[in-house]
């Protein structure tokens, strides 16, 4: 194996690049689910999934859940859809078009940036959303990371 790699150094280079890309991706892709610091409800993946698919409309504390999401093109949205909802973004888009046009649900309100999401959550006790973990500030509480 060592000989093989010795004779083909480009494999090592390519391998290292791929590995580092994967690593960087993983670091960048961590998604933090955030709520207002006053929200004392407990969240697991299943609860978060139900809230973001409109199947649960309130938190454990009984208050109505107001869902916010990053824009459709945001990488953390793709990651959240895959990791938490177990769906591709296109499946999620199709799901919400079904809900909207049968009058059974309204998708999370889209916000333009992580800072807008954080401001909205800091200002509203019942709001929940997710952002890139690197964007989290003290103004919000992280209840799960994926």
């Amino acid at each position, binding site marked *: 194996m060592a000989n093989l790699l010795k004779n083909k150094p480009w494999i090592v280079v390519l391998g290292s690049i791929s590995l580092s890309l994967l690593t960087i991706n993983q670091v960048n892709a961590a998604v933090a689910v955030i709520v207002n610091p006053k929200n004392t409800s407990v969240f697991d993946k*299943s609860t978060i*999934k*139900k809230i973001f698919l409109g*199947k*649960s*409309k*309130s938190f454990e504390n009984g208050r*109505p859940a107001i869902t916010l999401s990053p824009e*459709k*093109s945001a990488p953390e949205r*793709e990651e959240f859809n895959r990791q938490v909802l*177990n*769906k*591709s*973004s*296109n*499946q999620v*888009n*199709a*799901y919400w*078009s*079904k809900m*909207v*046009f*049968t*009058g*059974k649900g309204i998708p999370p309100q889209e916000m333009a940036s992580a800072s807008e999401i954080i401001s909205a959550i800091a200002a509203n006790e019942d709001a929940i959303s997710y952002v890139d973990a690197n964007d989290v500030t003290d103004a919000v509480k992280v209840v799960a990371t994926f």
Partner: protein
Amino acid sequence: MKYLKIMAVILLPISLMQNAIAEIQFSGYGSIVAGKVISGEIDPSGEKEFQVDFYDYAFYTEDVKLKPETMIALQARADLLDNLTVTTQIVAKGADDFSPDIDWLYATYNFSDDFYIMAGRRNLPMYYFSEYMEVSFATPWLRPPTNLYWWEITQFNGLTLVKNFEFDEWSLSASIFGGREEREDISAHDYWRNRGGYYWPPEGTYVSGTADVTWSEILGVNLIASNDWMEYRFSYFTTHYETYADVFFMDEVDTNGDGIADITVERRYNADGTPIRSNSSSVTEFDLAFLGLSGNLGFDYFTLLFDYNFVSYDDGYGFEFPTFLVTAIYNHDTWQPYIGYTKAAGKITEDLDGFGVGDAEEHRMISLGLRYNFHSNASLKLQIDDFKDEGDRSPWYDFSYHNDATLLSIGIDFIF
């Protein structure tokens, strides 16, 4: 239409009253589809037809057509009060010459977050995809398979009461619905009438006409259970089905008394000037029951859809009509190839006037397609459907005949 006027009279003053606070949200969906029959048998109309829409009687032939399934819908939703919303959908379809119709108009009143009532005009929740069968962006295919989705009635006016529950890992939704629907001058019935027909007008040889259909006393239930990776749905309803046709006769008249008919005269009216209507019979007026079991299983990269249904008519034939579909979809982010199989079979269980009992019709369809999600709000779909009549054509050849045909279609579905 009368119903819609009543709804408008009730809802308009409320909306005006609340105008200062009502915020109207617009959204919509549409499809631009081209299709062409690439092989098949010639049917009695003299063409190789492939039916795609029985509500508006749309079909493809060997010519490339863009109109049959191209459509657009605009939804407007207004929150009148904290717990009262009014929603409408105006739909313009190529099959209907793009004439805009108010296909949906209903008010939703929320008793609580998980308990609400919807009053007005909505799609009838029959099959798994019935409620959003025209929102093609939300379905894997270019259209729900016509082996199941072939009814001339797809909407109803009435009430739907919905209660959602949570039980452990399961989300449950139970709804009951009731109401009625009337449609006049239905074109799709030409399709059936020209293949033997079931309208029996007064004596004589009638030729054609337009059909009216009423589904009254619609009463049903939907139960949906879903968890992390699967969803199951039970659907059941009954209705009283009535259909009548305004028919006409082509009378052959001997004008010069030589004993040979020399002209043909069209006769559409009775002596008193009223249109000639078909008679009521046990085949045109009966109770219908619909049962459905359906759902989807979502694996990491695959989705499996299934839908089994059993329709029974308490008519003179004791007609029973089981159908099913299965579709498997591979969910790559951008590409979603899919393959589906559907089957429909009709059986006559009671002997009506010596007509006999037995298998009346049987047909299957295989669909193969590829969905390309080129935008978050739009997708391109390419689909091949192969329809095959597998029925024993004797002794009900005319009654059951569906021509074999293979359809190639391509379309863009979008939402906004």
